């Protein structure tokens, strides 16, 4: 059972990382962000599977953190997008 | 491995030396800008008392002071230990810190807007952080704890460089941060390798290990260059001149006099206490070559500077070089006990006199820059007439840097020269002599400008209170007075260093 769960964990990780590997070469930032999000969910799933395979229930806590913060990094990204239009107008740090 | 450390009566003083300034940082944060300076000055007074008490306890007991934190014995816990060298460093630090405090109080007092504002408040808080880190470097026995101490220094020192908020100093601070972080990282990596090989990070436990694998050599090869980057030894000195020259005068004094001595001290610990004799001898030779290159190259660079503070900063790199040529002169790594040799005493004296002289010089330069509004050496003609005391300060401190009798620097360089002659290190002897001449080459022109009669008199921007000028003068006089000190106190340096010395000499 442990072996099969680890195998499936590997499969999930590879499946979600494959997208990233290909998208990172493209030029569209949003798609890279989407791939990172996918890796976040896939990583959480991987951790859950590993936790079950190695009898480490605490790994679920790590998975919990990953899903909690995945939206956070997405928000950080949008922020950078949102900032650009007002770039010229905003007196952010005049010297 | 059991109870390698037994706490000594005055051990708690070591905790106070580290925690007092750290607690001051917290108090300043809570009490706010208006009371920051009061807290700082009170802490400086208390810290001076603590340093004095540590010194007295060392003399009284004749053994190193030890404290085991939380009573958890190493290797699981962390021990603090102050031998003669550590106590000397603690004392020099306390003196320079106190002088800097008095100087900074009046310097920032000149401009009421900055006194309780961003510049003043940040300065005092960072100064306290710096002091805590310095004291920890001198007393900690645990390599990871020392990493934390190095980071305390980094985080306190870097913002000090760019307090004036100009683009140039921002770039200097960023470059300093890059070098300092790289240094800490390499140091940490080495510590990790040592833990993997020995299962402890306690300096004495590692030193007592009988077998050394490749981990030791590689760890030293990572840690020493990392620390050299922080100590700004040639050729890793590029960050120092702009950083030290750009900081406010009070900050430059501490940075140049004390902060770069911390990594030097750690290198000494690593080479003399941890490294097996073979590696220590190789490391000592390499360090001496770099030290000599530092003396020659950076003295010449100092000669060519057009700005006073930059010249003093280059002189710092040159003077640091002397500390590294001590390694082969003291016979580190060839089986003799280095602690008793005259080169060892000379190195300690050089360290002390440079700390005092360089702090005095930066303060004097700061007064001149404050009074005249710039520090271009060419346009400083006749600055000796305006605020009266900086030129003599500069002169006295210069005596010590050049190694002209009577001064602390003279005795130091004389001892090193003798050691080089006895040991047959001709090239080192020549370097020491050349370094002295070159130092004369950059100190005399400044004195010449001070006494010159300019075509048109210098315009003074603001009056300078005499009290402000007195602090650096006292430091410079102290640096010279070290030369009159009987060398006996430096025998204290051997306290707490019996492990190796006893093994060799009966």
């Amino acid at each position: 059972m442990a072996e099969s769960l680890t195998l499936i964990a590997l499969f999930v990780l590879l499946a979600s990382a494959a997208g990233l590997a290909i998208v990172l070469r493209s030029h569209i930032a949003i798609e890279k962000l989407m791939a990172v999000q996918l890796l976040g969910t896939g990583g959480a799933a991987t951790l859950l599977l590993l936790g079950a395979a190695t009898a480490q229930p605490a790994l679920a806590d790590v998975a919990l953190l990953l899903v909690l913060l995945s939206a956070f990094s997405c928000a950080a990204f949008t922020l950078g997008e949102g900032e650009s239009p007002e770039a010229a107008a905003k007196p952010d740090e005049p010297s | 491995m059991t109870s390698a450390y037994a706490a000594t009566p005055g051990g708690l003083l070591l905790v106070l030396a580290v925690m007092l300034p750290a607690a001051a940082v917290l108090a300043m944060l809570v009490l706010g800008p208006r009371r920051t300076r009061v807290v700082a000055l009170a802490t400086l007074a208390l810290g001076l008392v603590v340093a004095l008490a540590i010194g007295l306890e060392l003399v009284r007991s004749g053994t190193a002071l030890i404290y085991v934190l939380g009573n958890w014995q190493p290797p699981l816990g962390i021990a603090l230990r102050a031998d003669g060298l550590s106590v000397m460093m603690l004392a020099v630090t306390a003196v320079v810190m106190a002088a800097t405090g008095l100087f900074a109080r009046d310097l920032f007092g000149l401009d009421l807007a900055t006194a309780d504002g961003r510049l003043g408040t940040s300065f005092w808080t960072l100064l306290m952080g710096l002091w805590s880190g310095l004291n920890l470097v001198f007393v900690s026995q645990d390599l990871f704890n020392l990493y934390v101490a190095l980071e305390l220094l980094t985080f306190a020192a870097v913002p000090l460089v760019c307090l004036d908020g100009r683009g140039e100093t921002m770039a200097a601070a960023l470059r300093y941060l890059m070098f300092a972080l790289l240094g800490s990282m390499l140091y940490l990596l080495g510590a990790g390798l040592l833990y993997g090989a020995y299962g402890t990070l306690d300096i004495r436990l590692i030193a007592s290990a009988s077998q050394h694998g490749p981990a030791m050599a590689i760890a030293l090869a990572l840690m020493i260059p990392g620390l050299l980057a922080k100590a700004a030894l040639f050729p890793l000195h590029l960050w120092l001149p702009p950083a030290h020259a750009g900081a406010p005068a009070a900050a430059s004094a501490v940075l140049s006099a004390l902060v770069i001595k911390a990594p030097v001290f750690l290198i000494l610990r690593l080479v003399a206490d941890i490294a097996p004799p073979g590696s220590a001898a190789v490391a000592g030779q390499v360090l001496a070559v770099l030290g000599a290159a530092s003396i020659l190259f950076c003295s010449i660079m100092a000669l060519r500077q057009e700005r006073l503070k930059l010249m003093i900063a280059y002189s710092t790199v040159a003077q640091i070089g002397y500390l590294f040529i001590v390694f082969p002169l003291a016979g580190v790594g060839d089986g003799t006990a280095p602690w008793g040799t005259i080169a060892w005493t000379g190195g300690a004296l050089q360290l002390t006199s440079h700390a005092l002289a360089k702090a005095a010089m930066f303060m004097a330069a700061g007064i001149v820059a404050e009074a005249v509004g710039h520090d271009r050496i060419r346009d400083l003609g006749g600055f000796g007439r305006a605020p009266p005391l900086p030129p003599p300060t500069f002169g006295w401190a210069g005596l010590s840097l050049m190694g002209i009798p009577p001064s602390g620097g003279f005795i130091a360089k004389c001892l090193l020269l003798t050691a080089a002659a006895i040991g047959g290190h001709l090239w080192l002897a020549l370097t020491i002599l050349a370094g002295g001449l070159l130092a004369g080459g950059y100190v005399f022109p400044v004195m010449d400008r001070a006494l010159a009669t300019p075509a048109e008199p210098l315009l003074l921007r603001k009056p300078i209170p005499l009290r402000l000028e007195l602090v650096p003068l006292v430091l410079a006089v102290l640096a010279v007075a070290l030369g009159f000190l009987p060398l006996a106190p430096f025998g204290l340096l051997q306290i707490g260093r019996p492990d190796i010395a006893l093994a060799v000499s009966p």
Partner: protein
Amino acid sequence: MSAIALTSASLFGLCGAALVGIGLFCILTHPDLLRRIIGFNILGAGIFLVFGAVARRGAAMGLSGDPVPQAMVITGIVVAFAATALAIALLRRLASLTGSATLEAATPPRSET
């Protein structure tokens, strides 16, 4: 089991070694300061992985690893984050003041008060 654990620890130790090299290269050569700061984080990750390998090898007494290096890594990660934050604050200020995000050439200041 122990043989596998050993190999796995060494594997991550080797990964740490590789990351140290990559991070160092980035710090030494990349002209973009922001990328250098990321390089510091990669270097830090490599160093911490070496600590992690050391910790994993020290598994004993029913613990899955030596807790001392693990605790050091936690301290180290937080310090590294603080360093990143300070470096970025400096970099942002430098960019605002001089219009340049590099230390390569001393560009003349664009505007100063």
